[in-house]
């Protein structure tokens, strides 16, 4: 073994009628060659009655090599060829003893057909959807109950935690929300002006921007952004705490995860989202104003006076009223999915994805319900 890297490929030679000599390194490094050599023992041995396997030339042997030799011995034994190992080094004998060939129990997990799987998946998703809704309602109930308990004993309320989360959700989320709303306001204004110009009504673009942004876009974009930015963070935080048994640690100290972790986060969301929506509205209007000036020649003064005619307080209120409800939905889904995390990192990833997708979906559904509601009460 001068150079341990020098690999002698495994081989076997037939020295006489009853004797096969194995030489070289019978190790996994030989890959498929090792397997074919193992098979060759069986092929050559099958022509003999009593085979002597000479292992004196084997320079190295690992479990794979020993396993294949044992497999060949077993197969030959089944074909009524008696096999005897000769000139085996003691350490190889030990290894050969440890790797005695035997069949392994087949995996007990059944493998149903593809069609069966598909139908089973479909059924499971449907049942899970219903269960999810049930769990969501239960979770909302628990949340309300916790709020009531905290309201009765305000000393239990974690004010520091609330401020911390408002900072991370509201303050640190503000720049990106200002930016995207400014851009979207500008884009809506530009398209409004271009399309309405054809009717000579480009000044109505201001009505379009004002109403669209205040009623729908501002709050919707903000909620979606927060669902992606803070909803995912909440799920990941709570999920990893669940994974590392921190939630269990809280429970055994007699504290409730709802009170310590979830209420401050959801309240921070409920308080931050309206503020962010207000900022988003202003930013989108500023974007619209700038674009109107550039493309439509509407000066900021003219823009503001046109805007004053186009909107009323209720236009703004329609948007801002939705914000806390959307925040509540985002917070509930994020916390619930975080708590549903199982032991593995993969599960955490899945929960975070599910949480973001569900909250964005629910935010849009909620927005639709509000649209129907406001239309019905003619607000």
């Amino acid at each position, binding site marked *: 073994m001068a150079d341990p890297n020098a690999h002698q490929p495994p081989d076997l030679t037939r020295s006489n009628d009853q004797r096969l000599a194995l030489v070289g390194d019978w190790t996994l490094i030989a890959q498929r060659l090792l397997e074919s050599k193992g098979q060759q023992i069986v092929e050559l041995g099958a022509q003999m009655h009593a085979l002597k396997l000479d292992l004196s030339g084997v320079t190295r042997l690992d479990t*794979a090599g020993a*396993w294949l030799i044992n497999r060949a011995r077993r197969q030959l034994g089944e074909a009524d060829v008696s096999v005897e190992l000769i000139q085996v080094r003691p*350490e190889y004998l030990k290894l050969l003893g440890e790797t005695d060939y035997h069949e392994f129990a087949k*995996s*007990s997990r059944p493998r149903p057909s593809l069609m069966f799987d598909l139908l089973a998946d479909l059924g499971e998703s449907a049942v899970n959807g219903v269960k999810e809704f049930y769990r969501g309602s239960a979770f909302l109930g628990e949340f309300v109950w916790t709020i009531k308990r905290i309201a009765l004993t305000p000393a239990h309320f974690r004010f520091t935690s609330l401020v911390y989360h408002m900072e991370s959700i509201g303050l640190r989320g503000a720049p990106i929300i200002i930016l995207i709303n400014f851009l979207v306001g500008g884009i809506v204004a530009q398209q409004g002006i271009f399309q309405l110009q054809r009717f000579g009504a480009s000044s109505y673009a201001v009505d379009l921007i004002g109403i669209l942004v205040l009623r729908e876009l501002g709050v919707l974009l903000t909620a979606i952004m927060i669902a992606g930015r803070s909803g995912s963070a909440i799920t990941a935080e709570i999920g990893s705490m669940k994974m590392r048994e921190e939630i269990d640690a809280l429970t055994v100290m007699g504290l409730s995860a709802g009170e310590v972790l979830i209420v401050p986060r959801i309240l921070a969301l409920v308080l931050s989202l309206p503020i962010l929506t207000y900022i988003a509205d202003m930013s989108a209007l500023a974007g619209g104003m700038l674009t109107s000036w550039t493309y439509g020649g509407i000066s900021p003064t003219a823009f503001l006076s046109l805007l004053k005619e186009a909107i009323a307080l209720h236009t703004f209120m329609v948007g801002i009223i939705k914000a806390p409800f959307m925040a509540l939905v985002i917070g509930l889904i994020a916390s619930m999915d975080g708590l549903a995390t199982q032991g593995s990192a993969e599960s955490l990833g899945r929960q975070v994805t599910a949480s973001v997708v569900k909250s964005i979906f629910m935010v849009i559904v909620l927005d639709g319900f509000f649209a129907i509601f406001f239309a019905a009460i003619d607000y």
Partner: protein
Amino acid sequence: MSSSPPSNSANAGDNPEVIISVRDLVVGFGDKLVMNGLNLDVYRGEVLGFVGGSGQGKSVLTRAILGLVPTRSGHISIFGKDRDALPADQRKLLEQRWGVLFQNGALFSGLTVKQNIQMPMRETRDLSPRLMDELAMLKIELVGLKPDAADKFPSELSGGMVKRAALARALALDPELVFLDEPTSGLDPIGAADFDDLIGTLQQTLGLTVFMVTHDLDSLFSICDRVAALADGKVIAAGPLQELLDSPHPWLRSYFHGVRGGRLTAGVAARGDV
């Protein structure tokens, strides 16, 4: 760092081959030097137990040898080759000759136990699916897991099973050298003793060299051929356990002859089997 050759090594001779050689190693984080001119030799076929106080850098040294922590100066040779001087492709070959059992198992959570064990085979060797299945099941049996553990995911395993599965993965390619980072921590005494036996048996049948970081005094007594102790960024002593037990170094005295160590040492001395 003189030492007698390991007693139960397959290749024991007058001049045992040095398989890991660490010279003048310096490792630091920021202002803090964790290793300061550390020297260590590991011989082929031995089980080296590595002890040291918590936070003294036992894991850091293991990670430095494995190349997971950058070193500031010094040489690390493995299988007689300077690790840092090797080109990337040769380093890869070198990495296939060792197996590592991380402290918390580090099993891939998205794969079943069997897939975890097959991962190194699948990635570095061209083998038939049948042989890969058989070898994975064989490794599962070798480490003392039940066959039905093969299709379980790491999150479904108990702590002891995770360690066994991780050992099976470390042994997947029949490495010559195995690093074990606190293999018995978190196991009950019966499980830990079983695990010690398992390592001993595998070491003898497969001719492994084992580098074992441990806090478990029982492991040191039962399976280690030599013990090295780390303190103040240096190996303060390395040799057969008896040498360390007799050493006057204050840290070693408190380690082996303190309340917990003393009880064991006294027991062993009474049995006279060290």
